[in-house]
């Protein structure tokens, strides 16, 4: 009989998942779009595409992308060290990687702003050198890199651990240098994990609010991020405008997801 399955409880578990998805994801998102739709097209366009909003999008997306790029490199390096080398304190370091997950982001923001402000330990040194660390684009990238780092490490680490040592040995026997082995054998194997890590960090950066508002200074047209603009609009009681901006961010996130899925599928097609 085709309806007999090895795992019992399919109707229950499936309906639970669907209801959960409906309640937690689909209904809130629809509500968001619905609220935004109370605006006329002209009002909507003004809300989501005036200069202030465009600047906010630019800050949000450019900082998130920059942080994701930084984290992709740093995360790969960190995962490599954690997987490939034995050293004292390795387990401690491994658990410290998750710290940004566990820590309230506001704490991260506070610490960073304290360190990089004019009088902070780092700021005191960097500012005279002409590196604007506090209340700047750079500060946002810095704090977003901190928040997003675990995503890349945790995406890459298991894949790196799973890579058969024989692959590297095979490459060495065939005459590849260490660098050639890394670029031609290891990196392509890690590529899907790196894409996933990049995407998660990027997405997290777009959504990040708590830490950024402490370090960015929130100056209009310069260091104001899109989520902050939503809060500003809410405080002005402009709910429809706020949801309009939110729906743009939502749309951007969906596009991102689609793009990443496409990239992952493309790399999967060539292997497995």
């Amino acid at each position, binding site marked *: 009989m085709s309806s007999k399955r090895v795992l019992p409880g399919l109707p229950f578990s499936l309906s639970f998942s669907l209801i959960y998805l409906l309640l937690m994801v689909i209904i809130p998102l629809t509500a968001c779009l619905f609220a935004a739709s109370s605006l006329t097209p002209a009002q909507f366009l003004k809300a989501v595409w005036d200069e202030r909003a465009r600047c906010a999008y630019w800050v949000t997306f450019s900082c998130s992308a920059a942080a994701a790029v930084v984290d992709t490199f740093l995360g790969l390096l960190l995962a490599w060290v954690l997987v490939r080398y034995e050293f004292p304190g390795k387990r401690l370091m491994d658990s410290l990687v998750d710290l940004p997950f566990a820590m309230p982001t506001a704490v991260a923001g506070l610490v960073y702003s304290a360190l990089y402000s004019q009088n902070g330990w780092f700021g005191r040194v960097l500012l005279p050198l002409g590196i604007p660390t506090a209340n700047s684009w750079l500060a946002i990238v810095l704090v977003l890199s901190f928040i997003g780092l675990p995503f890349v490490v945790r995406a890459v680490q298991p894949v790196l651990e799973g890579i058969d040592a024989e*692959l590297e*040995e095979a490459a060495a026997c065939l005459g590849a240098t260490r660098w050639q082995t890394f670029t031609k054998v290891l990196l*392509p194997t890690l590529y899907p994990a790196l894409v996933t890590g990049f995407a998660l960090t990027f997405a997290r950066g777009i959504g990040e609010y708590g830490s950024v508002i402490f370090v960015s200074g929130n100056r209009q047209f310069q260091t104001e991020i899109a989520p902050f603009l939503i809060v500003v609009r809410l405080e002005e009681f402009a709910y429809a405008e706020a949801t309009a901006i939110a729906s743009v961010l939502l749309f951007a996130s969906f596009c991102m997801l689609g793009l990443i899925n496409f990239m992952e599928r493309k790399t999967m097609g060539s292997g497995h």
Partner: protein
Amino acid sequence: MSIVIKNLTKRFGSMVALNDVCFEAPAGELLALLGPSGSGKTTLLRVIAGLEFADVGTVKFENEDVTHRSPKERQVGFVFQHYALFRHMTVFENVAFGLRVRHRPNSEVTPRVMQLLELVRLGGLEKRYPSQLSGGQRQRVALARALAVQPRMLLLDEPFGALDAKVRAELRQWLRQLHEEIHVTTVFVTHDQEEAFEVADRVVVMQKGRIEQSGSPQEVFDHPASPFVMDFIGNVNVFHGRVQHGKAHMGSLQIDYPDYPQAESREATAYVRPHELDVDKAPFAKSSICGRITQVNPAGSLAKLRIWSDEFGMALNVDLDHDRFSALGLASGDMIYVSPRRARVFVPETTEVDYSI
């Protein structure tokens, strides 16, 4: 190119993987390293390839000392047990890898890869990915990849271990044939004695990091150098007893053993292969033991019997040809007498003496 290995010792922590191993593989030979798991055969192969470095000892290729050279410098072709193919590359790119990292021009790479794929009978599959190939095909891709760089020797680690019986038999034949064609010195590791005997020119039997015996398949099979080799290279019946005055006494079995004429009685073990045991319905030969047939398996080229002996408290394996089997008309439950035509007696601290009754 010949391989000369002198006094290799390799430890992993407290485990001794290779214990003062010496051996030589003449140029152009196909040699099998045979042994149970943990015997050090794979470690030896990896030391030859430069993937592992010995604590003591030297590895020479012809007259060149390569003991401290990297795998890249040694220019050996190594085929891994699980093939270690690059999954993100096509068959073509896998085979081309060794040439690509040497920055050879396409005009050289393409014909060479195509020629190799023909050689391993994979022509037309160059655009496939490893995941789209069967186990046997992957094995041959791995071999072609190793051959692409014109290695000085070919090393294979359990090359047929992960394949099913039929493909395995085919690939064995094919490897033998390939070796006739390209004549590069080849060493392969296996735990399957049949495979070693069928394919290799010479078999090196290893145990516990030491070489137990080295010789042609015929020599090793007919004159095993130790009880271990005897036991390892085929099904065998083992009788425990004592020797004294040039005779071995194994229960009621008596076997001449002129090499031990002393009066002092010592422990000894006799090894008899299943096809070296004769059976009859009445006592025969100088001495025979009585047993009950517990299992009859006439399927195959020989009829296989299992005979329970109360005297030894163990089951004997006996192989009979079908003529003899049907002449005797044996069935499970029958009482029967068994006597060895030929036995090898080992007394601890003496060498094996092979001898017929």
